[in-house]
């Protein structure tokens, strides 16, 4: 399918048609707003906004959906930074340093940096798409169950490295997440595990309910502890634009995280949560100021934001080159374009090149538009911080309930929401790291299923985990990610035996 300059230019012309531009901007704006609400991530945002695309020309509809998708990715990190309540798995990493920055009165800078990083990640990924779509699609196919298992294992080891200095609590948090991931029907055998006879639990505990519960509800309950303390000084928004020094520090993390996120996004089933988390831990390990991570380091906002937006572009590759949705969001999009009479499949590039290239160009233009929208809106977003907390907290609670309801339309999720709210409260009070629980819950199910699929495929032999170069590389990375911080920590400890740092997220 290669790069055919003519098709690329034709696509650019289509994307620049006023109607398409208008829908692009409108979709991006809507996506941002919806993505800010707790629980309404990209998949839900696209699903609920699909009726708008009815009756549109298929190309325009697809452009609109991609705009909503990216918009929701931008929006998800807005609430992470401002309120410590991520809207979706891929926005969790933005809370690590974004929220501390907001607390320090640098909300404006964090928001601006997240928008810039998203733009850079997105642009890197679009370029990657144009040049590498076909070989990458082949690369993604090489991932069998063993490779997936090892990728999940690598992610878990990165999570462990996150709780460095607080290992016991990190491991407890991770194990609880893994145990929760086993709730529901076991795909390989059809056995129901730990569902207590509730059909609502048969498809497992929705990790979004856990995210909203622990972060949004837990955060509000946690803030109750200090609600009557006089507000010291008014939370300041600070500068609305980043400084030169911040740019210098974030430049390389963003440029490194873009390709990383893009590659992970291409793999069906991996996606934004894993991409942003891996880029965050990578940058933390590479950084000279890794002790600042988690306390409001701007690189800690830039890296995951670049990665998750790049991943959302990468996720379009399996959809457009093979007709296979690689993520929940692209699955929803697939359903929608089928209704419009488009048949995405391996032949889409040949049969309808103009549609594909208009879409690619729209992703490019869309990212630029979104950055403008988001930077213009920084002033408006930070107004949220001016709302008196005593009014804001009830509003967050109500939004958390509504957002939860939109996930499964079920009351059972309300009870889960409150249970995880209380768990979140205790975790925050006792300084248990939260990310290991959530990520273990997200990857745990896939990890177990892929491990068992590998064993069935190899008739029980473990050699399948060493059978391909990808496997070996992933094993190497896993070992490295576990050992590297240990070594660094060892050296540091020798240098200054004085104090033992605990850092919370």
């Amino acid at each position, binding site marked *: 399918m290669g790069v055919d300059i003519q098709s690329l230019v034709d696509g650019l012309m289509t994307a620049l048609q006023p109607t398409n531009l208008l829908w692009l901007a409108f979709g991006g704006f809507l996506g941002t707003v*919806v993505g800010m609400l707790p629980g309404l991530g990209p998949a839900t945002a696209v699903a*609920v*906004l699909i*009726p708008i695309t009815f009756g549109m020309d298929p190309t325009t509809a697809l452009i609109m959906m991609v705009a909503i998708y990216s918009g929701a990715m931008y929006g998800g990190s807005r609430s992470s930074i401002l309120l410590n309540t991520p809207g979706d798995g891929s926005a969790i990493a933005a809370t690590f340093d974004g929220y501390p920055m907001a607390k320090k009165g640098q909300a404006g800078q964090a928001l601006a940096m997240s928008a810039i990083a998203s733009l850079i990640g997105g642009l890197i990924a679009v370029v990657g798409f144009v040049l590498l779509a076909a070989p990458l699609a082949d690369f993604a196919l090489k991932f069998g169950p063993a490779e997936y298992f090892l990728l999940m294992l690598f992610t878990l080891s990165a999570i462990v490295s996150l709780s460095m200095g607080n290992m*016991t*609590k990190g*491991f*407890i948090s991770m*194990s*609880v997440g*893994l*145990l929760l991931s*086993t709730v529901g029907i*076991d795909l*390989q*055998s*059809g*056995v*129901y*595990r*730990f569902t207590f006879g509730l059909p609502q639990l048969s498809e497992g505990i929705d990790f979004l309910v856990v995210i909203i519960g622990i972060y949004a509800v837990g955060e*509000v*309950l946690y803030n*109750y*502890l200090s*609600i*009557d303390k006089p507000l010291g000084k008014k939370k300041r928004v600070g500068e609305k634009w980043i400084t030169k020094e911040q740019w210098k520090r974030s430049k390389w993390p963003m440029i490194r995280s873009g390709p990383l996120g893009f590659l992970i996004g291409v793999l069906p089933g991996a996606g934004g949560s894993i991409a942003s988390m891996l880029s965050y831990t990578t940058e933390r390990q590479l950084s000279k100021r890794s002790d600042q991570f988690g306390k409001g380091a701007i690189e800690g906002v830039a890296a995951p934001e670049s990665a998750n937006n790049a991943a959302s572009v990468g996720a379009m590759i399996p959809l457009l080159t093979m007709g296979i949705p690689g993520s929940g969001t692209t699955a929803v999009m697939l359903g929608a374009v089928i209704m419009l009479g488009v048949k995405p499949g391996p032949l889409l590039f040949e049969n309808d090149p103009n549609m594909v290239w208009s879409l690619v160009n729209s992703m490019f233009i869309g990212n630029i538009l979104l950055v403008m929208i988001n930077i213009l809106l920084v002033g408006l977003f930070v107004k949220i911080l001016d709302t*008196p907390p*005593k*009014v804001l*907290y*009830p*509003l967050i*609670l*109500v*939004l958390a*309930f*509504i957002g939860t*309801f*939109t996930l499964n*339309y079920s*009351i059972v999720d*309300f*009870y889960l*929401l*409150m249970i995880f*709210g*209380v768990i979140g*409260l*205790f975790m925050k*009070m*006792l*300084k248990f790291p939260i990310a290991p629980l959530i990520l273990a819950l997200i990857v745990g199910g896939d990890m*177990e299923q892929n*491990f*068992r699929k590998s064993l*069935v495929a190899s008739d029980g032999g473990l050699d399948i985990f060493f059978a391909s170069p990808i496997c070996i590389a992933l094993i190497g990375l896993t070992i490295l990610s576990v050992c590297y911080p240990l070594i660094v920590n060892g050296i540091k400890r020798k240098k200054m035996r004085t104090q033992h740092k605990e850092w919370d997220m």
Partner: protein
Amino acid sequence: MISTRLLMPVFFIFVSIGFLIATFNLPKAKMGDPNAPIYFPAVISIFLLIVSVIYLIREWRAKRKEDEPLKRLKAGRTPVLIVSTLVLGLIYALVFFHLGFLVSTILFLGALLFLVNGKSRWLVNIVVALLFSLASWYAFSHLLNISLP
């Protein structure tokens, strides 16, 4: 008195044992290895048990130190706020389908605002509860086409 520090580790030990027992009572798979669904949760529960015991030992060593974090739970009106919020949430869940989205949300949000923001600012509370519920109802059910009761 035994320090409250030990509560958490003991809680996790119970969780892991509970999961372990539940794991061994899982139904067997009808095809392939009958124990296949059991291995993973069993391994994880045993791991959790081990880590929890380590946690217990650590906290035991530190038991003389004051348990700061949990003390804050009892301070001021915090316990009232937390418990009332959860009770209100429970009521909201119970009446949600019967009263419909709009009425139940106005009541829930209103009650939360009176609870957190205080009675003295009743006007703000009522206005916010009404406007916000109406706006979110309109946004979700009309603009986003989500079916609300």
